């Protein structure tokens, strides 16, 4: 082959490569836009407040707040279907099931949802998409801790949710632009045919639990509540003892051995397995956290993102389905600020999870707040180091 041709080709390829790479060095646009409600907004409603741990419950939410939110949602829908061709991209911790999308489309048929489940890689996917010019998610989601990178990089668009009818009391745990949509927390999942769960993580050191407890390597946050209460050193020491005693096993799939009874206690969060022998138990110093939705500053369909966030968090028809229909049992437990009547109708797995988390809160579970976020992150990383090396 002609050497000159080869050399020329190599130089051309290198030039193309450099061109490609240099074109990628864009930086994110600043100054997020403010999103405005439909005309004559604001309800003037007052929250009939009940304190549920660190959360504030508005018992009159559906009577006094929901009608205005619902009206704003209709207006948002009209805007959303005209924006980006009605395309709505929802990247979340978990991929949305087709049944969930079908329920949304039953009320909002002209929006087409694309979904991805990214768990811990959600923030990096959002930042990568913005950095590399890909179609980004319209909706942001996560807890204060899991969304920390997105918060620090300024990805939550400035939305004043109170202007859309949301009680101001809901917006105290996180930043005002973060709409609380659900709750989660650390629980002991137990196969009750085989064993009974103890009341605390310390109790797991008893000999009868040797080899009976599992945790996933990506879930060190299970210990962070303990760290918040007892301090980092005590938490690290506990993890060390649980591991060295042979009590705690680190598994990728905790669910199969939990369900079959081989490893009958799983330190985890909410339960997704319909096996009737399984239960979810709160424990001392567990952590409970709110999960939030919001609008990505890099969103192509911001009205759609707001609509999705409000519908998913508060729509009574949708929440009733989640509480009672087993097809939706694995969706997240609704936000505890919603009226108690909502939780009272829960059945099946949703009831198991909701009862356990509300019991945790009642027992004084540690709760993530904006003020304690960095402490939670430090403790979770310390727990990660102790657990995974």
């Amino acid at each position: 082959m002609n050497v000159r041709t080869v050399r020329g080709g190599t130089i051309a390829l290198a030039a193309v490569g450099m061109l490609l790479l240099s074109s990628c060095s864009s930086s994110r646009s600043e100054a997020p836009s403010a999103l405005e409600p439909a005309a004559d907004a604001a309800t003037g409603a007052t929250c009939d407040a009940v304190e549920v741990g660190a959360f504030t419950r508005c018992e009159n939410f559906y009577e006094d707040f929901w009608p205005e939110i619902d009206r704003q949602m209709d207006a948002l829908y009209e805007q959303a279907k005209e924006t980006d061709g009605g395309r709505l991209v929802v990247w979340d911790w978990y991929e949305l099931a087709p049944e969930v999308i079908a329920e949304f489309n039953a009320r909002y048929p002209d929006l087409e949802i694309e979904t991805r489940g990214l768990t811990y890689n959600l923030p990096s996917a959002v930042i990568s998409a913005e950095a590399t010019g890909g179609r980004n998610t319209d909706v942001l989601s996560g807890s204060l801790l899991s969304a920390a990178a997105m918060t620090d990089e300024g990805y939550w668009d400035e939305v004043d949710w109170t202007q859309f009818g949301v009680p101001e009391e809901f917006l105290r745990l996180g930043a005002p632009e973060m709409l609380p949509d659900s709750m989660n927390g650390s629980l002991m999942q137990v196969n009750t045919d085989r064993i009974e769960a103890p009341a605390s993580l310390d109790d797991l050191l008893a000999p009868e639990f040797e080899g009976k407890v599992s945790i996933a390597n990506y879930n060190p946050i299970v210990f962070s509540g303990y760290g918040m209460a007892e301090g980092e050193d005590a938490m690290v020491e506990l993890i060390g003892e649980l591991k060295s005693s042979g009590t705690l096993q680190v598994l990728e799939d905790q669910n199969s051995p939990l369900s079959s009874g081989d490893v009958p206690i799983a330190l985890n969060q909410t339960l997704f397995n319909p096996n009737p022998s399984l239960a979810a138990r709160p424990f001392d110093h567990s952590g409970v956290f709110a999960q939030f939705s919001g609008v990505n500053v890099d969103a192509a369909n911001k009205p759609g993102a707001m609509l999705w966030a409000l519908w998913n968090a508060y729509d009574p028809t949708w929440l009733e389905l989640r509480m009672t229909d087993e097809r939706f049992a694995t969706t997240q437990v609704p936000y505890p600020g919603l009226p108690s009547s909502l939780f009272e109708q829960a059945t099946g797995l949703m009831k198991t999870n909701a009862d356990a988390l509300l019991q945790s809160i009642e027992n004084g579970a540690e709760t993530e707040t904006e003020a304690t976020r960095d402490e939670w992150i430090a403790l979770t990383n310390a727990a990660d180091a102790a657990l995974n090396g």
Partner: protein
Amino acid sequence: MSTEERATKAGRTRPTTMTVATVVAGTVIFLLLAIPLAVQVITAFRGPFLPFGVSSARWSVDNFVTLWGLREDFWAVLGSTAAFVGGSTVLSLLMAFGLAWVTVRTDAPFRRVISLLVIVPFIVPPIVKAQAYLLMLSPESGVLNQLIHLVPGMSEVTIDPYSFSTMIVIQSLTNVTFPYLMIVPILTGMDGSLEESARVSGASWGQTLRRVTLPMLWPGLLGVTVLTFILGLGSLEVPLLFGQESGKSIFALKLWTLISAGAGELPQYGLAAAWGCVFLVITTIAFVIYLRATRDAERRASISGKGFRPTTMKLGGWRIPVLLAILVFTLLTAVLPLFALLWSAITPYPLAFSLDALRTQTQFGAFGEVLADGEFWASLGRTLIIAGGSATIACGAATVLAYGIARSRATGWTRSMDLFASSSVAIPAVIAGFAMFLTFMVINPVIPLAGTIAALVIAYSYRVSIAYRAGYSATLQIRKELEEAAVISGASRLEGFRRIVAPLLAPTVFAVWIQMFILGTNEFTLPAFLATPESRPLSVYMYAMINPRSAQLYAPDQGAAMALIFTLLVFAIGYGLQWLVSLRAIGRASRRVRVVEVASDALAAPPAVEATDAPDTRSVAVQEVRELSRR
């Protein structure tokens, strides 16, 4: 001008069309391999997260400094990976060699059935296979441990599924088929006369194996060893499911962990890329050592011409022990994993196997739900497109380039290109997946392919060197005179390639295509880095079904049912394609008889009996040359 002079001239001055085709093929392969690796190297030097488009990206050696600071960790990773991959490679090779020997070189009964059963683990996607082993090995409920407990005196013996040694054995069992498929042709093609001589001279079978067979086979076996080792190095599935505790220092899992974000942090792509670079250097060194060790392999070539036949060893009294060993192997690699999947498919949630559960808990609805699931068919369709497309790109580009290089004068350029085109076997899948993931993100502003099916097709094609090596060897086996005769008869070099060489290469290329297609259908590591719900192949969808982390998609019974249906489908497709190849071969054999008849009349060819013994390829070539001569 004499025929010899014309032939020499034809060899030197290749017409432009063939040169262009070769350059295009070479460029495709270069782009496939060089750009992702370059992006990985750049990422290693450009900081903690993405190499471009974020404020943290700047040129530095911080990642390598960090890696040096973690050198104790590095040695642990190196040791753990060497033990895991080395141990499983040795075990896989021993089993594969034994199985290949039994099916090719002995008079064991059921050899055809055995060779079919060995293929089964190759078809099941590795992540599903690993999950099946996990179910099978559960300490109390797993069917294998339950079987062991039934053996008198072994009621207290339990296999720990999460121990390092168990992980090595599982990895070796899941990887047996690959070396088996490579060793079979080596054994089949080996001339038995030397072994016969040894036997006649009084050597036992053991002595013959040690002093004659293995020395003759070692270049081929070394190649299989290196490939199996690199395949193991890139496999994520077993360490991911079994090794969170004991195998956390295994390279593939280490890389996977680094690119998964920690609490409130971003993934450490830069550090992961630095790890990848170091391991790439190691595998490249291994690959170069292999190339040097096998460069004089031709001297050991033992396939002779017409007298060639492999000798058959009579098992005699060993027949029963050998069959028992194969039964245990089949039980461990096919029967029990498939049973574990079946049990998972017919129970509503993971349950220990028991007769009571069999009577009260089983139902077959999951199969119907899978068949009615639109996403199953969509992801199956994507799987076929991705596997078929990538196999076609790899085989097409590799065959053209292999021909161009094999027929060129040896220069520094051709030698470099040969080495480069062969080098993707040295890239573990986990590194290739990560490098492709970075590449598609980096080029996305200009070429928006990230997350698309096209990206997966390109990524899967990185195994191009499998096709290249096969194409190169096959080209060398075709006598150059055939193309020269075509050129002398007025055909262009491209036409000669198309009408003479391509038909001769077709059986090899198609066999490699099938192998790459099946490899593509069950690929998990590459799409784990690259796929989105819109582009995911079935392996990723199945994993979502069996992984509790998927929450709303989690349905282990449907995931298991899907795996069983998919296994049957790929088995049917694979054998269907082979059947088609057989039909084509039969058709060709019929044509050959006709050609021989004509040739013996018109060209006063060698005696018919000799011509009939000639390989397929030769007679097809004769036919093509005659057709071209008539033009």
